């Protein structure tokens, strides 16, 4: 195989022509057609040779040393329709070519980043969502994931945590995998990021290293035609992030300052203190409440109720967090060197005590022309994030969002003398939320370097060699220190965990691009790529701190355990694609990748991932005569991509292994770990996509519609083995999941005048998920569980008994049995399938108004059809009294015979003697987590340039922005956005309000 490719490469090389000697120059001025103003910073490129320049402050561009020939000149600028013209360069002459750009909506002429290259949007045959810098300017966002939310149709982002720096669960077109993960492949400037960057202590995004302001565009490769060039890693889609490059011309420097606040934006309705007391007196009787309960919280039994403290724990855990940000960027360069430099610092306190996020970020992007035909692109970012956090996502009493469920309103954090209240709860002094929030230090510190160096060698006017050497290096340190008061069992403890990931990617590609007979445009590339990801991790714990002051390991007296290991995987690939474009009407794209992965079984290491796509630009046909339609394109694609599991399962899962495990009398143990499966291979996804792109009324109404069906098979699942063999299961390729859906997105320019512009944008993605097959004839993966993963249902379908209300006669909770009759003790046989935790439809819509220097952008995000379980709320209701502050709906509890209500009576001690509990996991607790959220709003004002010049600035802009401003939902829990299917002490989204100023020097 390799030899054959080599032969063809040599063959191709024979056609390399030597005619490069004579050159000419092209120059021109670019202006706005409507205002006549000059436009600085416009990108001008001779597309065949990828040589170009940007206009300077006077709107003039110059491209020198252009080989003689005829080229397509393209000019593109944000907010304007792209310009294209044919120019001929003659030896030694200066061609002058001035351009007027037409303002317009983001149209089909945009250049879009694709796998290993760029394409004009009009020529794209696959399904790609693109988010440009313009669209995300000044959006309050800490990382690039957030920018995708609601802006790319079919990309579902579920916030996994609202803490500053928190991440998202990103699903592109639904969840195709059960075990191997559904996260897309993230690629920053061609560098594939490691997917293995989580922290055990708090929630973080894998894209925190990239400052949102440095992003030029984000592209999401959704269908197989677009993504299969990434082969075995592409089944979950690919997110390409491109950072800004330097533009030739005068240096443009911007400094920006931002300040703001973070405040709670969650929904929590506990009983009022008086309601809580009334309920307990009612349920327990006053004597029992006084004698049994008041002493638990440090009160004498005869304390008058009026002297019981009324404490608001929700207020205790929250605060108004301050946010500060400073940044600069500089952009410019001469003919041979262009640069983009940027530095950013931000420090954000969360709306919950002890939570913060501090980020440093430097970027240096250079483009250097070494010889007229050899360019080097270098992109480098160095970043550090420090993230003190709190417990979240689990049923833990030390999580603040559990604390507000169990901390009763008559308890309080501090005694009058300032000491912590030891009688705050029945969980002991160390679980007083004040001790947890003040004394425990849990922080995550990450340093990450993402860099690449990419030479481009223009062999001749149609043949080009590209290479890249990329690195993604990160080091994460988790530290969790609890002084003796917070961890009395260990006498104080410090846990330290270090992880280093060295992730190298290198590739070489030969690109050809030629037009034959004016109508046959062919572009193609072949290449090879090698990726190696190496990870080391070490963790240890130290206990026995004699004092509350020192927390480093040296201050401890004994070990609390240790561990460390390393792992790696390697991926070797051959890849290529051919684009054939006939007369700009018919476009055929074939692409494929041949991947070999170290992760899979000896017999199945290599696999081919091909795709084909066809596009028909109907609007280019002669018979197409609708003047109002500028562009109409039909796309069809089919292809195969793979999911090799990312960080979700072991790099050596295919092998028969005996693991280091346990020890006995100083001898470390070796335990049979897994049986070999030499056939183990990646999950395979077959996708079909039909799409339509349109542009109407001078591209004032543009949009995209896609329909897809994706079948993921060969899923990586454990095939159960009889445990009596010593093994519980063997990992195999079994099972099948299907996703079907529709995506639509459109943009409109509603009003466009000389000084006023009103535009809107909308995206929606509808997806339906179904498990088609599990291992063998297995019907449920987690049989008996509430989220069983069952054949014929969506992956997150619930399986619980049906709630039948409250018996009006005695207030008992009632359920339906399998036959639809009332039962008080539902069992597994009574479980029914219920709508799942997946969104049915999600997306966003926004609108922007520009009037002279004034701009208002408002963006809404929505999710419809997810069913979530607020489990912390449910679980603490198991003991409504002493363990729980109670939710306000308990005021509707059944109290006397004949009463018709939806909340059962509250029994003393929480146990219902004659029925299953109210907190039985039934359909009662499944809440519709649909929501509509005013996600962001930005109002900005750009100073007129004459005013700015008076203070020696070339421009200035001030803005106010906000995020998570208003939410409409009927969900019971704290925040529907972070809920997922199963919500336990999740950290809800925070409201953000910012004021900022940007100065162009």
């Amino acid at each position, binding site marked *: 195989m390799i030899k054959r490719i080599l032969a063809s490469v040599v063959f191709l090389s024979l056609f390399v022509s030597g005619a490069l000697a004579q050159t000419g120059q092209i120059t021109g001025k670019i202006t706005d057609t409507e205002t006549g103003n000059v436009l600085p910073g416009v990108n001008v490129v001779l597309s065949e040779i990828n040589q170009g320049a940007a206009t300077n402050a006077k709107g003039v561009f110059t491209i020198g040393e252009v080989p003689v020939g005829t080229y397509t000149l393209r000019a593109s600028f944000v907010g304007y329709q792209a310009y294209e013209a044919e120019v001929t360069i003659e030896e030694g002459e200066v061609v002058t070519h001035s351009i007027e750009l037409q303002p317009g909506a983001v149209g089909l002429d945009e250049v879009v980043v694709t796998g290993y290259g760029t394409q004009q949007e009009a020529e794209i045959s696959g399904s790609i969502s693109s988010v440009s810098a313009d669209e995300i300017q000044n959006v309050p966002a800490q990382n690039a994931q957030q920018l995708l939310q609601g802006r790319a149709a079919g990309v579902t982002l579920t916030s996994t945590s609202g803490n500053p720096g928190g991440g998202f669960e990103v699903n592109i077109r639904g969840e195709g995998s059960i075990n191997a993960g559904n996260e897309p492949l993230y690629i920053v400037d061609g560098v594939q990021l490691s997917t293995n960057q989580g922290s055990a202590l708090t929630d973080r995004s894998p894209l925190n290293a990239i400052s949102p302001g440095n992003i030029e565009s984000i592209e999401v490769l959704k269908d197989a035609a677009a993504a299969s060039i990434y082969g075995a890693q592409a089944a979950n889609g690919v997110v390409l992030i491109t950072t800004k490059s330097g533009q030739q011309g005068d240096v443009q420097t911007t400094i920006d300052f931002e300040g703001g606040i973070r405040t709670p934006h969650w929904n929590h309705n506990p009983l009022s203190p008086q309601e809580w007391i009334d309920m307990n007196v009612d349920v327990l009787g006053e004597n029992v409440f006084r004698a049994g309960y008041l002493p638990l919280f440090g009160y004498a039994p005869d304390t008058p109720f009026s002297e019981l403290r009324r404490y608001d724990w929700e207020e205790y855990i929250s605060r108004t967090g301050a946010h500060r940000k400073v940044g600069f960027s500089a952009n410019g360069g001469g003919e041979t060197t262009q640069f983009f430099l940027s530095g950013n610092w931000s420090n954000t306190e969360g709306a919950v005590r002890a939570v913060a996020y501090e980020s440093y970020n430097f970027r240096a992007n250079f483009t250097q022309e070494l010889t007229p035909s050899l360019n080097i692109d270098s992109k480098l970012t160095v970043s550090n994030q420090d993230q003190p956090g709190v417990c979240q996502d689990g049923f833990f009493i030390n999580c603040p969002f559990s604390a507000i469920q169990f901390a009763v309103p008559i308890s309080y954090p501090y005694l009058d003398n300032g000491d912590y209240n030891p009688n705050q709860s029945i969980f002991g002094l160390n679980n007083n939320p004040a001790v947890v929030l003040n004394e425990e230090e849990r922080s995550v510190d990450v340093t990450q370097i993402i860099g690449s160096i990419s030479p481009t060698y223009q062999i001749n006017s149609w043949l080009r060699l590209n290479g890249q050497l990329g690195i993604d290096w990160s080091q994460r340190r988790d530290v969790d220190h609890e002084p003796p008061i917070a961890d009395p069992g260990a006498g104080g403890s410090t846990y330290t965990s270090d992880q280093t990931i060295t992730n190298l990617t290198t590739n070489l590609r030969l690109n050809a691009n030629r037009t034959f007979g004016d109508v046959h445009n062919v572009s193609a590339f072949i290449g090879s790529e090698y990726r190696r990801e190496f990870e080391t991790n070490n963790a240890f714990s130290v206990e026995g701190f004699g004092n509350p002051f020192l927390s480093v390991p040296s201050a401890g007296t*004994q070990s609390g355990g240790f561990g460390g290991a390393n792992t790696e995987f390697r991926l070797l690939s051959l890849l290529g694609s051919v684009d054939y474009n006939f007369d700009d009407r018919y476009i055929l794209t074939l692409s494929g990748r041949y991947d070999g992965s170290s992760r899979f079984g000896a017999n199945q290491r290599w696999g081919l991932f091909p795709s084909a796509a066809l596009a028909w630009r109907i609007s280019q046909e002669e018979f197409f005569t609708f003047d109002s339609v500028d562009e109409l394109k039909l796309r069809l694609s089919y292809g195969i991509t793979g999911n090799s599991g990312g960080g979700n399962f072991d790099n050596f899962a295919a092998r028969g292994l005996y693991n280091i*495990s346990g020890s006995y009398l100083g*001898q470390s143990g070796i335990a*049979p*770990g897994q049986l070999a499966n030499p056939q183990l291979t990646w999950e395979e996804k077959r996708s079909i996509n039909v799409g339509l792109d349109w542009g109407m009324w001078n591209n004032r109404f543009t949009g995209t519609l896609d329909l897809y069906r994706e079948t993921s098979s060969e899923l990586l699942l454990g095939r159960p083995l009889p*445990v009596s*063999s010593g093994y519980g299961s063997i990992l195999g390729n079994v099972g099948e999941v299907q996703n079907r859906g529709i995506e639509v997105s459109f943009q409109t320019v509603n009003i466009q005048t000389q000084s006023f512009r009103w535009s809107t944008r909308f995206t929606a993605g509808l997806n339906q998920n179904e498990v088609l097959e599990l291992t063998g004839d297995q019907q449920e993966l987690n049989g008996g569980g509430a989220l069983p993963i069952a054949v014929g249902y969506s992956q997150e379908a619930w399986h619980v008994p049906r709630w039948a209300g409250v018996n009006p006669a005695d207030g008992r909770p009632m359920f339906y049995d399998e036959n639809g009759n009332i039962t008080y003790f539902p069992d597994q046989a009574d479980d029914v399938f219920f709508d799942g935790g997946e969104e049915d439809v999600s997306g966003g819509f926004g609108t922007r108004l520009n009037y002279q220097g004034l701009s208002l952008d408002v963006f809404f995000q929505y999710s419809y059809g997810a069913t979530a379980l607020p489990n912390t709320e449910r679980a603490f209701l198991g003991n409504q009294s002493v363990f729980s502050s109670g939710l306000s709906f308990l005021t509707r509890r059944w109290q006397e015979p004949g009463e018709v209500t939806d909340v059962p009576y509250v029994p003393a001690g929480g146990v219902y003697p004659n029925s299953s509990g109210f907190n039985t996991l039934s359909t009662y607790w499944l809440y519709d987590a649909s929501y509509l959220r005013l996600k962001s709003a930005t109002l900005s004002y750009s100073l007129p340039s004459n005013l700015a010049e008076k203070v020696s600035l070339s421009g200035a802009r001030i803005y106010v922005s906000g995020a998570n401003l208003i939410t409409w939902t009927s969900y019971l829990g704290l925040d529907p956005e972070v809920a997922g299917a199963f919500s336990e002490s999740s950290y809800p989204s925070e409201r953000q309000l910012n004021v900022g100023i940007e100065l162009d020097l």
Partner: protein
Amino acid sequence: MRFFAKTTVVTLALLVVLQGCDFADVIKRTEPSTSVSQETALSSPGTIRGIRAKMYDRFHSAAFSTDWMLGPAAQADNTFIRTGANRMQGLNFNNRRAGIGTGAWNNIYSAINDANLLIGGIQEDVLPEAERNRLEAEARFIRALTLHHATRIFGYEPGMSPSSGPGSGFDLGVVIRTSPTLSPDQATSKARAPVSEVYSQIETDLTTAIDIFSSLPSGEKSQSPNFGTEVSAQALMARVQLYQREWGNADQRAQQALDLANSRFGSSLAGPGELDAIFNETSSNPEAIFTIDTDPLTESVGVNLALAAFTSKEWMAQIPTQDLLDLYGPDDARRDAWYGPCFDDIVGAAPGGCAAVNENAIELQKYEGEQSTPYADDYIHLRVAEMYLIQAEARLNTSGVSAAISRLNDLRSQRGASQLDPANFNFDQAYGEILAERRRELVAEGHRYFDLKRLGRDIRKAPGTGASDVPFEDIRVLDDIPSGQLEVNTELVQNPGYN
């Protein structure tokens, strides 16, 4: 010229990239850092010794320590849940499917597979012959110990199924596997063997182990009760004979175990002042026969699941019943050595709710985690006192009341307890006294529930706890086979009465 230069550059560059790929091999050259291949594991002395270490390490799990030791106390009348706690509540109330079998199943068969590897999976000629033989004998002992634990949880003793009820005539034991699983095709479904076959497999293993141990050169004979030895094999054989009501054999094996324990380890009945030392890791156990050593740093089950966490250190979920405490006479040294006031050492305060289980709010203090972290205890699976009690019961059935009471008195004299007069006992009363003595002596060492069951008696609950006795005919006397396994292992039969 330039044409050729360029062509050469391009070609060379691609050659470097692709040829370096000969290269395709590069993706084969990764190795895990915490695992070795099966071939390596079974063919090098260090890893084979690692498999042996793992076989013993299985006993550091909660299922083989806390459940094994404390479970049978909670399932019968020795301990009960403290008000406000919830650990082992299901066992206290003998809830359906709440036995100790579900947790133990995986571990039992993992340990058996370890043993099978040492017996028949490791490559020949890697270890010196004597060591290899010793490992086989240890493996046979562990296989016998775990197989016996499995069969007492899931099956009736031979000939002891109830005379009525769903379990009547039920005679299945558990799945027997005697060869290691080396490939997926060996991990096949396998049926449960009749309980008599299980017992004969156990006896074969123990007999073979004893033969091998006794013929080992003296340098290979372990001097440590922390491994399987001829002593522990004899002692386990005595227990297995007792379960089968082979009284003569049981008496004789117990005697052999006692003699060997004395000569090999210097173990003998501890005096009244040494009782704490039996369970205190900072001193050596004077009664040792087979003890799993636990390194407090790395081998503890941890704060939530350790024996000490259940009984004496922190959560105090299982409290000795008043019924148990009432069995001790006023001078019985065991009452002082192994019990004390309920106290949460971590919080530094007495927890509420102990007094609901016994009058004076007493906790069991056999397991106190005396080592550097509070949640690690050694697990004493076999010790001298049990051999005395086996002999007393065996002699009652062979020689009668006075021989039995006399053997009990041998034990009681070392416990500061009063001497019993055989004249006060008929056969049944003597039997009752032996079982009571087993409670006094062996509480929370893994016996009480199984003592009642092997004799076909109802599972008794302590009065005043609110839990009801479980008649021997009740299906709950046998734990259910984990239901997931019935789907995977199609030849597996569920215990009677469970669906």
